[in-house]
């Protein structure tokens, strides 16, 4: 028995599905087949119940009151920071900054570290398969500072050309900003190798982990990167909450971001003293429900084991890829050897948007469009793709439903 088959015998997907109430509903009169997990994931009852419990029993502001509920909410909020720290194997809770999501985390780094450390003539390297959220902030910074954003090319499979990247490194490169996994193609980037070369060059590395955290075991110390950002809602938690992890020494040196309550030690009209890490970067009342919900989500994911989830999803992706390739006229966009839970495709003669509408009538939810990665679509010379993205609760039967629905598309169009 192969390792994969072994994993699938211990991985009880039917039981996992029972944790997700929404998976039981119908859409358009058919059972929901939710294959848009790279956009957002559904939430298990453990997360939903946690949010309800927070508002039913614990709601109060954090870091402020001496009363019971404020102490309780503060304790839950800070415990959650510990859950995140353990989830990504950070060395200290002080390195965990709560944000609205990956986008805000990247913008935080751009506006604080970037504005302090990037100047005229400097370079920021990004890859050709980045989400807009890891492109636009760097363009804004480059424009402001007279710096340049340069793009690391990919091959036709959607894999980063690492040797080309290593040649692009030079003393002007201050930062390499790279996705852990591509939302549009699924490509898993060789982060360790990228970091090693960057550090040898004196450049820092920010990893956009929005598509990494849901699918791969994350160990920021092992990856060796300097910043890691991810979103709660893509890892079965609530929307509006995310995490920036940064090396303590870097975060210490960075100026504060937003000013307000909670990020200060003392305020007078003459002088304000900023709070210690991580509070320096968390101005205002935070998204407390989001934080406790995120912790519940990470606990949920951890209870199944990221390695088990990755292995299960890999099997699912391999199966879905094989089934899709049985369809005449299907072309896969993104065929990297190292891929996470995404199958992006085009169907000859049918625009992805039409595919999306017809699949929807069959209860199958996929994303169609440019996946917030327009330069990438240009690279592969397609206006858009259809993208099926899998989560820990998806099944082979759902991959079959996708294939059946695609046959309906062909029926309408041929």
């Amino acid at each position, binding site marked *: 028995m192969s390792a994969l088959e072994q994993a699938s015998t211990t991985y009880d997907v039917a039981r996992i599905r029972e944790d997700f109430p929404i998976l039981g509903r119908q859409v358009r009169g058919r059972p929901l087949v939710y294959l848009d997990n790279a956009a957002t994931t559904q939430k298990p009852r453990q997360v939903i119940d946690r949010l309800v419990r927070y508002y039913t029993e614990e709601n109060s502001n954090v870091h402020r009151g001496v009363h019971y509920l404020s102490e309780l909410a503060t304790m839950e909020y800070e415990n959650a920071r510990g859950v995140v720290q353990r989830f990504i194997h950070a060395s200290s809770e002080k390195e965990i900054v709560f944000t609205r999501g990956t986008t805000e985390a990247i913008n935080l780094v751009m506006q604080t570290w970037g504005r302090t450390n990037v100047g005229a003539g400097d370079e920021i390297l990004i890859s050709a398969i980045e989400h807009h959220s890891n492109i636009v902030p760097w363009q804004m910074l480059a424009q402001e500072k007279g710096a340049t954003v340069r793009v690391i090319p990919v091959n036709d499979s959607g894999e980063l050309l690492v040797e080309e990247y290593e040649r692009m490194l030079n003393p002007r490169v201050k930062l390499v900003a790279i996705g852990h996994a591509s939302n549009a193609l699924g490509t898993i980037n060789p982060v360790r190798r990228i970091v090693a070369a960057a550090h040898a060059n004196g450049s820092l590395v920010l990893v956009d982990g929005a598509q990494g955290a849901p699918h791969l075991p994350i160990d920021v110390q092992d990856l060796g990167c300097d910043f890691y950002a991810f979103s709660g809602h893509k890892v079965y938690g609530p929307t509006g909450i995310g995490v920036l992890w940064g090396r303590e020494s870097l975060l210490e040196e960075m100026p504060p971001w937003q000013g307000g309550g909670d990020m200060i030690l003392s305020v007078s009209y003459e002088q304000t003293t900023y709070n210690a890490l991580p509070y320096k970067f968390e101005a205002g009342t935070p998204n407390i429900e989001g934080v406790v919900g995120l912790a519940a989500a990470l606990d949920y994911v951890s209870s199944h084991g990221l390695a088990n989830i990755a292995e299960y999803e890999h099997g699912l992706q391999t199966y879905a890829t094989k089934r899709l390739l049985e369809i005449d006229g299907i072309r896969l966009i993104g065929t990297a050897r190292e891929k996470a839970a995404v199958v992006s495709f085009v169907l000859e003669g049918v625009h992805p*948007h039409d595919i999306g*509408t017809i699949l929807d*009538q069959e209860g199958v939810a996929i994303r169609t469009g440019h996946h917030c990665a327009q330069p990438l679509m240009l690279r592969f010379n397609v206006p*858009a793709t259809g993208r099926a993205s899998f989560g820990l609760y998806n099944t082979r039967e759902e991959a079959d439903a996708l294939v059946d629905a695609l046959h309906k598309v062909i029926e*309408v169009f041929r």
Partner: protein
Amino acid sequence: MSDLRELYQQVILDHNKNPRNFHELPDATSRVDGYNPLCGDHYTVYLKVDGQTIEEVSFTGNGCAISKASASVMSSTVKGKSKDEAEELFDTFHKLVTGEAGGPSAADLGRLAAFSGVSEFPARVKCATLAWHTLRSALEGKQDKVSTE
């Protein structure tokens, strides 16, 4: 399948596969780009207007079947019409695809009636109206890119 057949009527599939007036217009008096950022539909509409009359209409670009067929049917419908007539047609078409109460009857619409199924698919209204919005912008003499967002 019935709603789908209603959306993807034969006229639409035909115009998608063999779009009419699908080329540049070298002697155009105006050209405007239209873009639907949600799905990446992207067209350029070319017009040759003489006084009040639309003498020639053509388009180039790419997008879904609904948007391409709509651009194709639009181009053959408004050719030879006056600017005001084209505006009225857009108005009628818009009521049809949004399912506005008291909308036009199929008899008034000719080939445009093929788009009646769009009203059951609110997410696709922007696809169906992209070329028309672009046409309107060209008729108004605007040069800016039209976006349906």
